[in-house]
Structure formats: C-alpha cells, structure tokens
C-alpha cells in the first residue's frame, strides 16, 4: 500500500523551521468554550489534551481580526486573545505540538446580532443563509482589515505561538473576495481577486517574520460552478499564493454550501482527497498541503498520503472523539481508538444556543477542566487495582443491559480495576445503537458499538449474552456485595393499532422489512438482536403506501423514510413542523435531508397532525388552520418518542440507572450517564464536587470559566505520560 517516499502520519514535519511531532492536525473549529470574546482556561485544557495525545499541529479557534466581525456570540476576538494564546502555547509546547492561531473575518457571512453593526463585504451580496446584506467595503475598511490581520498575527507571535493560519475557507471574507459569487468589484480588488489576500499575507509575514508558520485555509471549490470558485480556478489561486505560504489546507464550500465543509456521515469520508491531490499537484511542492474533510480513519489518512494527495492530514473530529488518537497509533493499537462516527450531534456548535462542544462518545471532551479523566481512558496503567472478586467470588459490579450506557459503565468501571459482569437479554451487545446502524449514513454507528464492546472485553468485562436478569438476581447481587447498574434501555409506545403500525426501530433494525429486501442487504447478525423478530423470521411490511409519522424531527424519521423509499415504497412523511427533520439543524443535515427526501420521491406532509388511520388512509390536519385531508396509508411507521424500560427498576426502585431506562434520549446521554455510574461505582468523583463549596444538595456543573488547573486533571495526565 505505501508509496515509496510517502511520509507516515506519525512522521515529523518541519514548517518554517519548526518541527511538528506528527502530521496529524487538530484544526480550527467553534467550541463555545470562550469567555466573552477571549479564550478561556477551558480552551487551554481542551487543546492541551489533544497535544498530550500526540497531535502534531493545533490551530486554535478562529479569532476575528477586527471588531467589525462577531459571527457568533463566543467567537474569539484577536484583540482579546493574547493571554489565552500564551497559556495554550505554554500548555501544548511541552508535549511537542506546534500551535497556530486561527485568524479570520467572516465578512458578509457573519452576523450583526452581537455587534449591532453593519457587516462588511466585497459587494452587496445578500447572504443565502442569514439574508443579511453587507456594506460594500471601501479603501478605509480594506486598510483596517489588513492592519487587523497584521496586528493579530503579531500578537499571536508575541504570545509564543508557532504561527498563524488565515481563513479563506467557506465562511471567510478573504474567500468572498476570491469568488465571482460575492465579489463584483470593479476596482483592483475585483480585477485581481487575490489582491486582498496577497496584501494580507504580506502584512502578516512582515508581522511574524520568516521563522514562524504562515498557513492558509483555502476553499478550493464553492460547489457553485456558475459563478463560484471552481477547482480549476482554485488550482491557479493556490499556485499563485503558494510561495508566500508554509502550509495550505484544502477545503471546500461557500455561501450556498454551508453544510459541505464538515458534513455528517451522509457524505462519505475523505471527500476532499481528489481536490487536495489536484491542488497539491498545482502547487508542485512549493508548499505542503493538508487534507481536510471527514478524515476520521488513520488508515485512510495514511492511504491519502501514500497516494500523494497531501502531506498532512487534518483529523479534527477524530481527535474530538479520541484525544489520544496519535498516541494509540504510536503504541501500535489503532483498534483502540474511539471512533468518530461523523454524527455531528454534539461537536457542531455553531448554534444560537451556544452549546459547549463535546462528543457523544467521549463526554469529557469540552469539559476537561471539570470532568476528571477516568483511568480507563489512559493508554496504560490501571487506576485503582483491586483483587478481582477477592471477597466472595462475585464480581464487584453487575451491569444489566448491553447498550451504550451499560457498555460504557462496564468499560469505565473495569478500567479502574473493578471486576464487572454485564448481562444482556438479547443475543448481541450494542443495544439500539447497533440495531439501528443501518443505511449508508448510519452504519458507522456500529463502529462505536464495536469499540465499546471490544474495550469492555479487553478490560476483562464478562459479557453474558442472552441472559435475563430478574429482581431476585438483583437481590442476590446486593447480598453478595455486588454493585448493580441498570441500563435496560427503552420500549416503544403503543400509540396506534398494532395491526397497521410498526415501530421505527423495528424497521431500521430489519426486524420488519419492506417486501423485496433480502437478507443480504441487512447488516450482519440482524437476527441476533432484532427484538421484534417473530418466530418465523423478519416480518414483511404490508404492501401499499406507507406513512412515516415523525413527531420528533431527528435522524430516525428521515432515515426510515429514505430506507423505505429506496426499497421502492410510496412514502408520505408526516410532521407537525414546517420542514422535515427540524432537530437536524444541529448536525447540519436539515436542508440536505429535505432535499434527499424530495429527490427520493417522499411526499412531505408538513405542519400536519396525524388524527387517525383507518380504511387504508391517514387523516391529517393542518396544525394552524385545522384543515383536514387524507393520504393513503396501508401501514404506519411510528417514529415517535419511546418510553423507559423500567420493569426491573420499578421492582427495585433506587437502583442506579443510566441512559434510556431513565428517559429515552440519544447515545450521548446514554454514554455520559453510563460513564458517571461506572466512575461512581469505583468511588471516583463523577462530577465536580460543588456540594462542599456551597452546600448544594444537588449535582451541578455550573457555567463560567474552568479552573486553570484542576488537580485531578494533572493526576490523570500524569498517569498517561
């Protein structure tokens, strides 16, 4: 596989005379960890954790270089970042990582909501998303912008950073000048669309000198060929700018393709590889090229390097999911890397609500200052060593349920040295996470279920499949001194006549399948985990039109509709909302999902309440006007909310429980709660102890700045070094 002379991901790389310990980049991204417009102690801890895990090059959250730019509330402002940059440099450099300051200005793609000031743009182009129109920049604004870049770069250098990365990506003002979509200027910035970027590069180079890294993030395809930057134009742009640069990161996207930059799993990984290869060929060695774009698998990243597509790989989400990615690669244990499944559910935080960045699979991400590292996350060394089963021959802990909550609880507890038994009723672990990992965009979810199971087994968890636990078993465990955790998952709600309705998860799991879909198209071992499978095998969905009822607006309803439409079924998608999949705005899939449904021929029955199903039709009612109509409905797939499976809990109230059996939610909550219970079982703090500070009778994770150095964090990282 490896091409002669191609670098390895783990090789060093030298840029502007500075050597990064690996070729794995942790790229700039929104975190909402900021304090005001400054970088916070939480930022420092967040980046340090990735540096400790082996990242070669870290680019901090892009800071606005001028006060006219305030694209989201917690967007850093370079003028407020010197202190944060200094602390981040001091924290990351001992691990060998190089750190660049991300610098940018979002121009007409920003927001006036926070600055209460007019946006800047090359021309009066109205943004497709915000529908805001900028003022047209004149000479004074352009001069201020160039000066802002230079001042910010000088401040970053003075703070001890290794250089800067300038943003000319899908949301950047520099790119808006590059593009015929957004620039119709007649002056020299229009006749030469790179003129502004050249001036900025020259000013920044003068500010940081030759011994620091000057990097550029360049959108090389705006996916709007009628007027936008095309790959061919971008190749010329890259070649023209290359002599001024130390690193070029190839990205894509523009004003009409906001979701194309870091899409979820509906877009296959490595989507920029051909683009990067073309740009790398165009720059002809004048500057090293970094590959971006759903690069989450180290083997695929290495293959891209082997193929000559790039010199470095930006693996941001992969390191959001596993901060120790490079360390685990170096240790020869790539299979131990916690996989990024490209779900975008909690790491894509450009949202008005200002969610804190985190990862559904690693709840510690974004909470590094408050959330102690479990020893189980360490690359080596147990946390607490106990004599396995020394007291009674019984395990220290019994986990009931093998979904993500149960597996995470077992994994974390076992990692601290506890002996753990996990009992799962069905024939396969992974719970709903694995059972519904079907279809092109969802099959990656199985990788997380696999990882949880493999790690639990590696740490010695005894997994008993096909094992039903009773209340008597709980009593016996308690008598033997075994701690019990319930993670029994959820159950469907009987909202409709079972003769004409089907549970959405049964459709996704393959327990109920449309006619004509054969066993081969199902994921492996479907029969071992499909709860609704009858004694004679999978149930066949009745013929005729299908109504997909989705009152939730999450990924499930859309996936079910797509699956059935792909099987050739006539599908009506019923939602009370004005669009399908409302909650997908967080993952970036909202507009794309609606496009996919329409292309698949799914009829979207929008802002509609489902009143009844009878006589082969469903009665729908407009949520606002009350107007009623009927659509064909031979069978209804219910994508509505589920209820906790709490039979065992109700038999023994007060037993610790996690995940859906508390309240059916998502994988993120299941893993977060499983982890807390695993830590608590080991007697480790699962939450910061504010109780002692304020005598609060509750668990509570307050807002505000993280403490600069949490002693538990120090201990945990010491154990890993």
């Amino acid at each position, binding site marked *: 596989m490896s091409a002669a002379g191609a670098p390895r991901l783990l090789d060093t790389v030298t840029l502007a005379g500075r050597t990064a310990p690996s070729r794995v980049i942790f790229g700039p991204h929104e975190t909402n960890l900021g304090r005001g417009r400054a970088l916070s102690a939480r930022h420092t801890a967040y980046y340090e954790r990735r540096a400790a895990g082996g990242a070669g090059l870290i680019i901090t959250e892009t800071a606005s270089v001028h006060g006219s730019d305030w694209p989201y509330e917690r967007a850093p402002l370079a003028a407020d970042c010197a202190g944060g940059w200094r602390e981040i440099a001091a924290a990351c450099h001992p691990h060998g990582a190089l750190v660049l300051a991300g610098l940018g200005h979002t121009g007409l793609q920003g927001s006036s909501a926070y600055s209460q000031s007019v946006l800047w743009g090359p021309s009066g182009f109205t943004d497709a998303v915000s529908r805001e129109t900028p003022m047209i920049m004149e000479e004074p604004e352009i001069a201020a912008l160039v000066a802002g870049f230079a001042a910010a770069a000088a401040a970053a250098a003075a703070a001890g950073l290794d250089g800067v990365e300038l943003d000319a990506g899908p949301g950047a003002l520099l790119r808006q000048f590059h593009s015929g979509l957004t620039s119709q200027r007649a002056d020299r910035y229009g006749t030469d669309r790179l003129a502004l970027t050249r001036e900025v590069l020259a000013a920044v180079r003068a500010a940081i000198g030759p011994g620091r890294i000057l990097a550029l993030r360049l959108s090389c395809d705006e996916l709007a060929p009628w007027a936008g930057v095309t790959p061919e134009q971008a190749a010329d742009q890259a070649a023209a700018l290359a002599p001024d640069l130390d690193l070029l990161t190839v990205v894509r996207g523009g004003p009409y393709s906001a979701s194309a930059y870091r899409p979820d799993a509906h877009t296959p990984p490595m989507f920029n590889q051909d683009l990067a290869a073309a740009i790398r060929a165009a720059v002809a060695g004048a500057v090293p090229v970094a590959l971006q774009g759903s690069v989450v698998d180290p083997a695929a990243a290495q293959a891209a390097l082997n193929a000559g597509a790039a010199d470095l790989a930006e693996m941001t989400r992969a390191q959001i999911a596993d901060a120790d990615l490079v360390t685990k690669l170096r240790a020869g244990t790539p299979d131990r890397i916690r996989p990024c499944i490209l779900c975008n559910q909690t790491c894509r935080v450009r949202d008005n609500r200002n969610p804190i960045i985190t990862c559904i699979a690693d709840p510690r991400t974004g909470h590094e200052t408050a959330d102690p590292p479990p020893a189980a996350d360490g690359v080596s060394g147990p946390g607490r060593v106990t004599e396995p089963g020394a007291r009674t021959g019984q395990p220290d802990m019994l986990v009931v349920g093998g979904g993500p909550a149960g597996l995470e609880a077992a994994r974390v507890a076992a990692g601290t040295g506890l002996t753990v038994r996990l009992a799962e009723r069905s024939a396969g672990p992974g719970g709903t996470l694995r059972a519904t990992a079907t279809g092109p965009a969802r099959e990656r979810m199985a990788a997380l279920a696999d990882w949880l199971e493999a790690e639990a087994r590696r740490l010695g968890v005894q997994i008993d499949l096909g094992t039903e636990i009773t209340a008597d078993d709980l009593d016996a465990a308690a008598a033997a001194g075994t701690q019990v955790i319930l993670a029994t998952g959820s159950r469907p709600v009987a909202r409709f006549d079972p003769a004409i309705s089907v549970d959405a998860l049964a459709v996704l799991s393959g327990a109920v399948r449309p006619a004509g879909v054969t066993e081969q198209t199902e994921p492996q071992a479907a029969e071992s985990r499909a709860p609704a499978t009858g004694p004679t095998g999978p149930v066949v969905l009745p013929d005729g039109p299908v109504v997909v009822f989705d009152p939730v607006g999450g990924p499930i309803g859309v996936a079910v509709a797509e699956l059935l439409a792909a099987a050739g079924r006539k599908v009506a998608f019923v939602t*009370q909302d004005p669009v399908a999949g409302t909650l997908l705005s967080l993952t970036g899939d909202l507009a794309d999902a609606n496009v996919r449904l329409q292309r698949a021929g799914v009829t979207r029955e929008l802002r509609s309440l489902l009143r009844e199903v009878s006589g082969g039709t469903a009665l729908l009612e407009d949520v606002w006007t009350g107007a009623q109509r009927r659509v064909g409905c031979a069978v209804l797939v219910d994508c509505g909310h589920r209820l906790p499976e709490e039979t065992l809990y109700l038999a023994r109230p007060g037993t610790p429980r996690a995940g859906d059996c508390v309240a059916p939610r998502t994988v993120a909550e299941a893993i977060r709660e499983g982890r807390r219970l695993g830590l608590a079982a080991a007697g480790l703090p699962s939450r910061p102890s504010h109780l002692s500070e304020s005598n609060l009778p509750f668990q509570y994770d307050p807002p505000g700045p993280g403490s600069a150095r949490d002693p538990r964090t120090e201990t945990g990282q010491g154990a890993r070094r």
Partner: protein
Amino acid sequence: MSGAGQYRYLFSPLRIGPLTVRNRVVFAAHLTNYAQDGLPSEQHAAYYAARAAGGAGLIITEEHSTHPTDWPYEKLIHGFRPEVIPGYQRITRAVHAHGVPILAQLNHNGGQASGMFSRLPVWAPSPVPDPLFREVPKAVEEHEIREIVAGYGLVAGHCAAGGFDGVELQCSHSSIVRGFLSPATNRRTDRYGGSLANRARLLLEIVAAVRAAIGPGLALGVRICGDELIEGGTTIDEAVEVARMAADTGQVDYINTSIGVATATLYMIEASMQVPPGYAMYIPAAIRRAVPLPVVGVGRFKDPKQADRALAAGQCDLVGVVRGQIADPDFTAKARAGEAARIRTCLSCNQECVGRMGLNRWLGCIENPRTGRESVPLPAPRRGGRRVYVVGGGPGGLQAAVTAAGRGHRVTLFERSGRTGGQVAVAARVPARAEFGDLVRNLAAEAARRGVEVRTGFEVSAAFLRAEAPDAVVLATGARPARPWWSGGHPRVVDVREVIDGTAAAAGSVIVVDELGFHQATSAAELLADRGCLVEVITNGMVVGQDLGVTLDLETWNVKAHARGIRQRTDVVVLGSREEDGRLVLSVQHHPTGTALELACDWAACAVPVQPEDTLWRELRDGDGGGGAGGGLPFELHRVGDCLAPRRAHAAVIEGERVGAAL
C-alpha cells in the same frame, strides 16, 4: 384634564399582602438573557432601576431557577446558588432607591427544557416530551418531588436575603408546576396525578415551603396559566379552581395570570400586533370573580388608557405592561404627568425583544436603542450647538435627528418625499401592520418636540451641502427597489413596495416572490388578496416568511393565508420570465429536484434585496477633494441605515442613535 386625573384607577394605590403599590402598572416577569455565568448582572440592576425610575408600580424579575435539572436556555439565573445573593442585593437596592417594590420570580421549567446545558435528565411529572425541546423527561420520583419543593424554599430564602419584597411562583407558561397541573402532561397515577387536588399538590407544597422560607413579611404571588391553548390542556374552569385553592391556603397575596404554553403556543403569550390588545383578559376576569385576592391581567397593554379601562371594567386589579415599558421605561411617569402622547409606544413587532430571546441574545427594543444597554454609559457629547443636516426622513434619519437634537445640536432634516417615515411608513400601510408605523410616528413627534427643523419635499444635492457647509451631515437616504435580473424589464414585474404604496396597480393573479423571508412578501400577499387578487407566494427558502417564526408571526400568517386562499410554494428559484398571450409566465425551478415549472400570472411582486440609495454618498465621496469619507469636505459626513446597507428598521435606528450621539 391633566396628569394622573385622566385615569380613574391606574394611579390608585393597592395593598398586596404586606406591600402597598403606588399604582397599578406592573413590569411583569420576562426573560432578558442578561445573566452572566448563571448570576444576575449589573445590567439587570440598571434595567429594572430604569423602569422603577420611570414610575412602575411593581416590578417582578425574570425567573430564578430552583434546581440544577432546570437549565433550558444558556443565560438562566441559577437562583439555587447562594452566590446570587450579592446580585440580588444590587438589583433590589437600585430599584428601592426609587421607592418601588420588586419581587423575584421562582421557577423550575420542568419538561420544557433539554439536558443540553445541565447534562442531566430533564424532570417532569410524566415521560411526555415537550413539543419544542422534544426530549423525553424523567418522571420524577417522590424523593425528587421533595427535592423540587426544597429547591423553591431554598431560592425563596436567597431572595429574602437579597432584599426582595417577595416572590412570585411561575406556575404558568413554562413550569414544572404547570406540568403537574395540566392533564396534558401529568399522567401520574400516584397522589400527584389524577384528580385536580392531586395535580395541584405540588403547587400547594411549594406555597407552604416558600411561605415558611420568607415569613409573613414578604409578598407571595402565584402566576397561573388560564388557558394552555393545547389539546387536553388546562382551561379556564380548572385555572379558576387552582387560583381558589391557592387563595384558600391563606398564604398567597396575589394571583398573576397568563395564557398559553411557552413551548407550544408562544405566539399567544407574547402576541405580536396581529393579535388584538387585551385578548387574554377573560382569564383575570374569571379568576377575580372567584378569589378575594388582587389579580394581575396581561396581554399587549401598550397604552395607559387601555390599562385604565381594564381596571375600570373590573377585569383585573393590576395590569402587566412589559413591552410597553421595554420600549419606554417612563411609560408610567409620562402617563402620570399627563403626557401620555409622549410615550414611545410599543409596536408589538417582537423583533428585538421576543425575537432576540428566542435566539439566546440579550433583550433589546427596535425603537429604544438604550434598552439592554442601561448599564453602559452614553459617551459624553463632544460639544453642543453644532449645525447638523440629516438627509432622509426614514427611521435612521429621524433617530439621528432626535438623538443629535437631544445632545444640544441644531438639526435640520431633509426629506425628498412629502412626508417622513421612509419604508416603515410604507410597511404600515398594510392594515395588519399599521402599528409598525408607530416607530416613525413616535420619532417624528419626538423630533418636533426637540426642535428639529423638518423640510419635506426637499431634494438635497452634493452642491447644496457643500454650499451650506453645516458642521456635520448624516446621510440616511435609504434604499431603492431593484428589479430582479430575470424580470427583463417587464412592466408587471414590480417590487412589493410599489404594490403596497399603490404605485403599481397589481390585479388579477399575482405571484409574490419572497427572497427576504420577513414581512415584505407576506404583507403584500395579504394586501393583494384583500384587494381581490388570486395570490401565490413562492420562495427559494424552505418556508415562506421564514423569519416570521422569530417574531411569532408565522402562525397568524398561515391562518390568514389559508383564510384568503393564498397559496404557498417553497424551494423554487425564478430563472426567467416572458410574456405569453397577455400573461406573464415565470420559469421556475424546484431546486431540490431540478424540476422545471412554468407559472402563469398577471403580475409578479418581488420581495427581493434592494439597493442602497447611495448616489449622494458617492458624489460627496468622489467629488473634489477626494480622500474618502468626506476627507475633503467642509463637514463631517456619516451614513446610517439602508443607504449603508439595506437592512431592517432596527439597524437604521441604532445607527441613527450611534451617529447622533457621537456628533
């Protein structure tokens, strides 16, 4: 008649338990997003103090959360932390300085939340997901109910220590107490579910705990939802019964009211100008008949006369005036002084108050640039008495003139047309949007009071300005319609502005093209339908009027569109137009599928981006002397509003204020 004498009841004092209020105007509880790190801020104190200084009878703060499982939005005050007390004291000192009592509102939002911020399960009576947040809550167990009750008591104690005159329990539009009261969300079979007595048990336990925490010397109010406006929800009869149960405890001093559920029917809680004022008064009226306590009525009160009439009619004992005092903190003082005409009347446009709340931004006001900035001192005037010319009489120019005149400058405002008001005046010609016109009516009246010389029908040229050579010129020349590129100059492809102001006599079947996503297209469509046209609104967006959701106008728009037979088509872009058999044919593409469509009509009315009217700016900038931004001019030169970049009215107002203050 002058002064307070115009009002029979508004300025009569009232006892509320241990308190006496000097008038009946309540600045009722509402979110502000002013909290920082979960604690009340300096801005809170300044904000409430401004309304106290303006004469409000009673102030009730925004909600204080009683438990860590309650964190539905980022900038919630975490009242359960003892660190809130210094912030509480700052607020109460600032308000008490004006002799006005202030209560704190206590709340747990229950299932009307997500775990996004708390990282904890959401708590509710039953696992019924909220219509907005859509997260299945954890059905609370008895020990957790005890924790909830204890949380209310804990926070009530913090409020007492913080100097509040009492507390109000929000049991109304977003509350775990409402969740327990409502049959729609309470499916319990234990002693907290089933009968109304059981569903009200949590409320009564909380009342007892809170009264125990605050003692007899402070006021305790209960805010009740009189009608949830949701299927299977609480309606007025049960609400009256709950009020009676609360009153019967003998521990409650007043009842506040509300309507709707914040996460389902918010458009009826913070109703825009589409909903008639006083729409919710049947609720306090019914409760007042049943309980011997003072009752607060709310619902788009924006005029002191209207408030006085509600009191006179016996509908309520106190009137909540929230947006009215957001827009004008001196609402009450001006009424008392007999200067009600000077009140900067709220538009109920919801753009910068309600709209910003939903987007997690600090609360502001479209027509009051100081709202939300009370704690930020104004810059000192450079010097007074400068001669200032303002060109353009829309909201930006009017605001610049008003502010500059208020800072002691001599201001002349030139308006090309026959009247001031700009695009706001045009928008207000649509009957359902008439109240929006108060923005420029208020400003024009204020300009007159401040001695601004207004010259209408006067076109200003660069030569005129150079010759006049005032000290400063503010350009507020607005924007002009731009024909879309696909119109081909067709005379029946027009701007919605021309339809609304009557310049274009659109008739027959009309396609309204919505590329702006706000009121422009939907207003024109409504007007055209009322004129008898057959109307279809098409948009390149996923929803017609997508931003109407922010101002809570989407529901009423759709109801009105349905009633008028207005059709809506989404996800289409216009690619061309042609004349065929005397009809206008638009070629459009459904962009998700690429499907081509031909839409025939008689007229097309376009709500598309407009162009800055910056001719004068360019002439001044590029004229002799050059140097940009008036460098070679005999005066200081500024631009505000649409002539800088076409935006909504608020941008014009804040820029007018900013420039006017900086002169």
